[in-house]
């Protein structure tokens, strides 16, 4: 892989992990070289008052906000096998009408394997371990008897499988990623949660030295019409079209800063069971390369 492209891949690795349950790291066909390390610590802020319910109807609610600190890492065990982890170790969230709840998020630990190196194709298998408490009730500020369940994880074990293919336009410093994933979900208490499909496209560009930009679109569908009635934060029945863009600035050989913005569209996949608003994140990247 070309040097610039090798670096640009890192841009996509940590940007999405707070916002989406889908592991962003799995969405490229490239894997890391043996002994190489990539880590990122990020802060994210999200706020919105526009909620789409399970029927896809938009409604204004009290403002919901979420902040998170997260750790993302990956390590090349061999040139074909990369292990990775993704953990929002602190999350806080609440409505403007409630207190905020605090906790950890769920932990993703998995592996990505290069099926082909010449044409970069990878498959990732990533268990999502329910480390977070399954229930966290936020107390209403006005009525002491009123509360809302805002768990910082979805309360269930689930398993992502992602197939990704990448290509570059070398010598033009541009790359493309195409990916599709299946999220096998299990249960929250007695509620069966629905499996999900995920597809996406991403493009990255290196316009000037030390700066890389990226942008993408992602769609998610739920594979059931019988959605369990659970708190919206568990993502049951959630469907969406998201867009994102970001910029990475390389400070030196090992360190960099990553800024990202995420938003939502109403087409082609109509939003369901999701708050749509702007998401901003900033991350500090550390990497070791061979």
């Amino acid at each position, binding site marked *: 892989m070309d040097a610039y492209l090798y670096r640009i891949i890192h841009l996509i690795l940590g940007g999405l992990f707070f916002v989406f349950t889908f592991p962003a790291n799995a969405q490229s066909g490239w894997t890391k070289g043996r002994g190489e390390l990539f880590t990122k610590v990020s802060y994210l802020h999200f706020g919105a008052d526009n*909620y789409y*319910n*399970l*029927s896809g*109807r938009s*409604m204004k*609610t*009290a403002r*919901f906000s979420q902040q998170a600190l997260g750790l993302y890492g990956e390590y090349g065990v061999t040139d074909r096998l990369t292990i990775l982890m993704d953990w929002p170790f602190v999350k806080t969230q609440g*409505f403007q*009408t*409630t207190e905020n709840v605090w906790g950890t998020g769920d932990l993703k630990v998995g592996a990505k394997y290069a099926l082909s190196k010449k044409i970069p194709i990878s498959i990732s298998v990533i268990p999502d371990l329910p480390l977070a408490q399954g229930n966290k*009730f*936020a107390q*209403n500020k*006005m*009525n002491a*008897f*009123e*509360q*809302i*369940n805002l768990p910082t994880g979805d309360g269930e074990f689930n398993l992502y499988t992602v197939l990704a293919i990448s290509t570059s336009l070398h010598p033009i410093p541009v790359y493309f990623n195409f990916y599709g994933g299946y999220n096998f979900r299990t249960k929250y208490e007695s509620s069966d949660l629905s499996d999900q499909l995920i597809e996406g496209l991403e493009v990255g560009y290196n316009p000037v030295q030390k700066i890389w930009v990226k942008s993408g679109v992602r769609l998610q569908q739920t594979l059931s019409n019988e959605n*369990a*009635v*659970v*708190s*919206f934060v568990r993502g049951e029945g959630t469907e969406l079209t998201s867009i994102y863009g970001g910029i990475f600035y390389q400070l030196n050989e090992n360190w960099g800063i990553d800024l990202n913005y995420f938003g939502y569209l109403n087409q082609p996949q109509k939003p369901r069971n999701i708050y749509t608003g702007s998401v901003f994140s900033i991350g500090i990247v550390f990497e070791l390369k061979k």
Partner: protein
Amino acid sequence: MILAGSIIMACGEDEPTIETIDSSMPQGTFTSSKSGTFVEQNDTGSAGLAELGTDEDGTQFLHFGSNFMTNLGTGTVTVYLSTSDTYMADPGNGNPDLLLIAGVKNNGEQYFKLQPAAASKFTHVILWCGSANIPFGYAQLQ
């Protein structure tokens, strides 16, 4: 609130039993004076019977039938009596169009004791999610 007084009753000469009276529940027969059916809002599945009436002691109660249901997967829902089908808060003037009744955690039959009795101007029951500030449903009492 579940609270009670106790009465000792003699069922047999040597075997007195203690009957607990739940003062939050109607004493004797509950008689409905107005009733209505919940209309769901925001796809919350709200449904079932709501009744306003009195027990044999003349105490007023709001009663939800055994078919009452709403989406409680997110936590609690607050019950109000209202002068219309719309939640119209006016805290600066003491919320004259609303009467806070209680929070609901479960579906199914339940009674809410109204003491003092609600004013006759209240014509609707409203289910309100105060955390998200959205209505879950209403029932017109007639």
